[in-house]
């Protein structure tokens, strides 16, 4: 993992979750954490003379989920609190998006901020258990987190019980229904709704599933209030967000930026483009390509929506002009196809078929009908799976056809461009199916 430069001099309100890291340059243990933030204000979570109840504070703060979907956090808490039975809190730290490192980074440098958030959320909805889900195979992360939990236990900090789980690391295991299914003894594959997790999740109890970063923001809103939270970001999309910048930038890594920061500024904070850029991949593998001429656009849902893009899980991959966007997209699609949970026909068959079409296009081996077939196949992916995995792949494919339209034309008429023959630039995991779902 790359550590971001700590010498940066940007405005302090943009640095929240990572401020301890920037100040000290080392992961915060419980002593560091308590010195910086004090104990989590659990009794205030229900509201008292000095503080409004946490759920209302979150609503006023306008905090939304930082896992990709961007759902209002307060609304989720409220739905779970209103459910029947004792709720459960699940921390989603699966971060299955290969281009994202932010949750892993946050948990490495400020684990107690995330745990505070989980404990506070549990308190606010009346839950007695917090399950922290991390991907299997990151043993260093697992041991660090179990040490962090031990520290809290030894200090008798929390009344709720905290449990750590290592789940199979597949692209769709981070779906909230996958987590619920696995925690109940099943496979980490998505379940078709209904029932929805917030009504009937783990052990049939109302289940609050939140991304790790979201909970860290929640922990700060609980301490400093909605007014403070709104000092960064835009009026519609307040706060900061973690981003993972990779690809052709001088200093790739995880950064914290205010929502609404122009994409070009985000890239500059990651050292700036290392060579002239063709495009950026925004949001992740299930996100979309944005031509480099749009880099002046702010990182916010509102600003990006007209371009069919979204901040997603805060992924920014800079694609240099010397690379072929079609080849890179074909590699990502092959990976996404291999990672299908294989449960739904349209995903199981449609995704590999669209990926194969795209690979033929990238290789300059398209037949006459390829483009119309590819468009039809990707057009039939959205809304036809039990989860949104096929929708994401379709979005990526469609955005590539738009962003690299000139290259598509070239590949169709003259075969692959010279860039397509160079070694690929983006790190994409091998297109192999997950080893296990349990």
């Amino acid at each position: 993992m790359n550590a971001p430069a700590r010498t940066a001099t940007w405005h302090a309100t943009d640095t929240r979750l990572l401020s301890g890291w920037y100040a000290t340059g080392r992961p915060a243990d419980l002593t560091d954490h308590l010195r910086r933030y004090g104990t989590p204000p659990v009794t205030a979570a229900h509201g008292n003379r000095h503080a409004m109840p946490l759920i209302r504070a979150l609503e006023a703060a306008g905090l939304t989920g930082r896992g990709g979907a961007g759902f209002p956090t307060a609304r989720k808490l409220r739905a779970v609190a209103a459910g029947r039975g004792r709720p459960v809190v699940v921390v989603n730290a699966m971060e299955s998006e290969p281009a994202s490192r932010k949750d892993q980074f946050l948990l490495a440098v400020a684990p107690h901020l995330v745990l505070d958030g989980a404990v506070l959320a549990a308190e606010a909805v009346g839950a007695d258990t917090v399950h922290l889900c991390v991907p299997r195979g990151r043993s260093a992360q697992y041991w660090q987190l179990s040490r962090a939990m031990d520290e809290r236990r030894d200090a008798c900090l929390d009344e709720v019980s905290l449990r750590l789980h290592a789940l199979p690391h597949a692209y769709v295991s981070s779906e909230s229904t996958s987590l619920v299914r696995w925690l109940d003894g099943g496979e980490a594959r998505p379940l078709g709704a209904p029932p929805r997790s917030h009504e009937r999740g783990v052990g049939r109890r109302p289940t609050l599933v939140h991304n790790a970063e979201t909970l860290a923001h929640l922990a700060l809103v609980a301490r400093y209030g909605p007014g403070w939270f709104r000092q960064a970001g835009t009026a519609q999309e307040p706060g900061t967000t973690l981003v993972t910048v990779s690809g052709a930038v001088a200093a790739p890594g995880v950064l914290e930026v205010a929502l609404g920061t122009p994409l070009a500024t985000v890239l500059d904070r990651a050292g700036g483009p290392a060579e002239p850029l063709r495009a950026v991949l925004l949001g992740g593998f299930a996100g979309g390509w944005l031509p480099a001429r749009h880099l002046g656009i702010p990182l916010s849902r509102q600003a990006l929506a007209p371009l069919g893009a979204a901040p997603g899980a805060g992924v920014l991959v800079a694609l240099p002009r010397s690379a072929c966007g079609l080849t890179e997209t074909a590699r990502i699609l092959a990976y996404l196809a291999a990672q299908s949970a294989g449960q739904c026909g349209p995903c199981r068959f449609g995704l590999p078929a669209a990926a194969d079409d795209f690979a033929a296009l990238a290789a300059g081996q398209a037949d006459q009908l390829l483009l119309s077939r590819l468009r039809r196949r990707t057009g039939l992916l959205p809304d036809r799976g039990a989860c949104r995995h096929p929708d994401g792949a379709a979005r990526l494919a469609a955005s590539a056809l738009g962003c690299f339209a000139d290259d598509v034309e070239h590949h169709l008429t003259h075969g692959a461009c010279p860039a397509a023959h160079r070694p690929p630039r983006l790190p994409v995991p091998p297109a192999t199916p997950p080893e296990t779902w349990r």
Partner: protein
Amino acid sequence: MTHTRTLRVDRIACTGRGLCAELLPELVDLDEWGYPVLLRTTVPARLRGHARRAVAACPVLALRTDRG
């Protein structure tokens, strides 16, 4: 008292190549692998009977109509 009915497919349960497209071609088409493509999800009043028959014919209970 009439309610709008919405056609839904449980994508995990659906095994494809079914009768639904045959019994309800106005609303259901099949993709190249035989899995249903819903042309529209709201069931018009005149197709209620056909929709009910298609739902009943699905061997794995993957097709259903929900209220609203």
